[in-house]
């Protein structure tokens, strides 16, 4: 007994023990420290190198790129701004007048669906700086759709977290049946759409009030939540043709509004799913207390719930923003010129007559990733813990 105690005292540990045993609880042994940091550094290199490569390639020209890999600027090769000039200076429309004109065009294009019945603006020629156009397009579409997505999504998630819904299975079936009838009568029997829709809705409410009482099986909040997330199971490419035709029918192709709508809808399930968990984690006493204090449901949501889920909200916003910013499939189908976004522009550099213009592509990529990095830095401050501290523990 005594000798074994003597052996494990700190000053008497063998070299092997010092290598493989942690010096204290909550610390790592030397060997595992070495291994984990090696893996971390290796992976960090793996992740950072492409970004480094994109940045230095943006300052190369055709010859430097084609003559083989050069790694270190000023040593291996002389960096220059040629590729940047192509995008920003050489474009004849990159001046204050053209950009102002373009902003007007953007606003008109975004609102064309709403304002065109009232007044029509002469469709303007796209005399514009392409890089600037794509950048502002991306910015407007990304920010607006993220804002819409997060506000609708979090409201829906809050409702699902706190209100109990019990839609009757039979009523849902009736609704689908009547919707099909409405579509059929409109398309094949020549009945005007407003008439058939009105009749369909009236019939639905009538049936739901009368027949609905007989149905027993109901769905619950969990089913609704799963149904919402199931919208994301289909890959976008599967639904792109119907979506294209829908936008074509209402005349929204190649507008900001179209992309804003489709991005909002496409990312809504992710926001609902993420925010639902954050709302569930809030102690319900806070909301009950606010109810007794006299707050309305909306003011509870706005004044109590949202500030307390700020870290979750920031993380969700960042994720949605990145998804919207990088989206390619929908954009490539729906936008052709006026509402082109940055990812489309990057891809376009792939298909030049002179082969792939790597240096020009890298300039676009650098311009594209800067706002996201800025957003991440801004939002990261909010993704902190301890907001709920002091709420309920004694």
């Amino acid at each position, binding site marked *: 007994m005594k000798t074994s105690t003597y052996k494990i005292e700190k000053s008497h540990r063998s070299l092997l023990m010092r290598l493989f045993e942690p010096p204290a609880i909550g610390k790592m042994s030397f060997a595992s420290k070495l291994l984990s940091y090696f893996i971390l550094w290796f992976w960090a290199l793996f992740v950072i190198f492409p970004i480094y490569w994109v940045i230095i390639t943006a300052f190369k020209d055709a010859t430097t790129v084609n003559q083989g890999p050069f790694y270190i600027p000023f040593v291996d090769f002389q960096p220059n701004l040629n590729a940047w000039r192509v995008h920003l200076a050489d474009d004849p429309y990159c001046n204050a007048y053209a950009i102002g004109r373009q902003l007007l065009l953007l606003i008109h294009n975004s609102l064309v669906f709403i304002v065109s019945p009232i007044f029509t603006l002469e469709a303007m020629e796209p005399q514009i700086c392409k890089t600037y156009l794509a950048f502002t397009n991306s910015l407007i579409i990304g920010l607006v759709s993220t804002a819409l997505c997060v506000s609708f999504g979090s409201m829906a998630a809050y409702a699902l977290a706190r209100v109990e819904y019990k839609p009757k299975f039979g009523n849902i079936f009736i609704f689908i049946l009547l919707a099909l009838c409405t579509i059929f009568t409109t398309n094949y029997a020549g009945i005007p759409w407003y008439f058939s829709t009105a009749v369909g809705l009236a019939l639905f409410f009538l049936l739901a009030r009368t027949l609905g009482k007989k149905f027993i099986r109901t769905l619950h909040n969990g089913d609704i939540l799963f149904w919402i997330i199931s919208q994301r199971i289909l890959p976008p490419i599967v639904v792109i043709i119907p979506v294209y035709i829908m936008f074509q029918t209402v005349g929204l192709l190649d507008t900001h509004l179209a992309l804003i709508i489709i991005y909002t809808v496409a990312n809504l399930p992710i926001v609902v799913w993420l925010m639902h968990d954050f709302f569930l984690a809030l102690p319900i006493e806070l909301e009950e207390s606010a*109810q*007794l204090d006299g*707050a*309305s449901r909306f003011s509870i949501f706005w004044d109590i719930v949202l500030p307390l889920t700020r870290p979750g909200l920031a993380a969700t916003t960042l994720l949605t923003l990145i998804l919207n910013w990088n989206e390619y499939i929908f954009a490539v189908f729906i936008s052709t010129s006026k509402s082109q976004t940055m990812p489309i522009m990057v891809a376009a550099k792939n298909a030049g007559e002179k082969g792939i213009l790597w240096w020009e592509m890298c300039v676009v990529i650098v311009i594209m990733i800067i706002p996201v990095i800025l957003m991440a830095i801004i939002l990261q401050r909010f993704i902190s813990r301890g*907001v709920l501290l002091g709420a309920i523990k004694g």
Partner: protein
Amino acid sequence: MTSTLGTTVKFEKIAKSFGVVRVLEELSLDISPGEFLVLLGASGSGKTTALRILAGLETASSGRVIIGDNDVTEVLPKYRDVSMVFQSYALYPHKTVGENIGFPLKVRKVSQAEQDKAIREAAAQVQIDQLLDRYPRQLSGGQRQRVALARAMIRRPSVFLMDEPLSNLDAKLRGHMRAELKHMQSELGITTIYVTHDQIEAMTLAHRVAILEKGVLQQLDTPAKIYNDPINLFVAQFIGSPPMNVVHGGLEGTTFKSRSGLVNVPVGGKIDKAILGVRPEDCTIVAPDIAEFKGEIYTIELIGDHTLVTVKAGDDFITVKAPKDFSGKSGSQIGVSFSKERMFVFDKETGARIR
């Protein structure tokens, strides 16, 4: 209890079940204006459910709730003019103490100047007026408790609801806050309904105590009546610390017989399985030869101002509150005598008191 502020509260056959589980069985209560009523019960007795039904956070399966002259059974919480202190305090962590206290006024669109005045008044009443700019996380448990109280009373509701408000505090602070709460309630004269599982809180605070068990109201009376005249075995054992002694045996005429002795009781009847209940302070240690019950000393605990002696008599353990200078040895033979008027006999099957 004479106050203009207080409002009557009435439960009319309130029942509540969650699915097949019946939590409350037809609870009827009649609470007078300005009264301090304590709902006392173990966890799962339905006391919190009753309070939440009154607050409007839960809907009753049947029955009616009446506050003042209004039937509020189906009225939203915010229109009931009640305020509640939660066990967890439920302070808004992102708001300062001042904003927390003023929240009920803010949502009612009271002007900022009036809000500030009311906040300062309410804070002064619970002695936290120097903490108004702090956040809840910077406060101690007792201070948070005071903030919750101030927030509950700032708009002078017609009814105060308190759901175990003191149970998160340490023992010393709890005693202190208890006294303050009682003082504040009698000063404000607001009808208060207080839920607790702590019998000391119930006894000290209440004008009347309602004891609930498994959703059924057992007894509703003043603390003194509940202590001195329990209606059944459950109430008798629930109230009192250390709890009432029980001796198992049978009743024949006015004689209660158990394996360790027999005693004349003030009631009569013939019950094969009866229980004799005596509070520890109504027992005395005597010499074995003159005692009604004989046994041996099991443990001796010195409390301070008295000594608790547990005596093993047959299969029963009898705790006796003895003087602090009691001297005796564990295991020695001893007798226990009961004071004549303070013995209760219960039917073991039903728990009902034999009178």
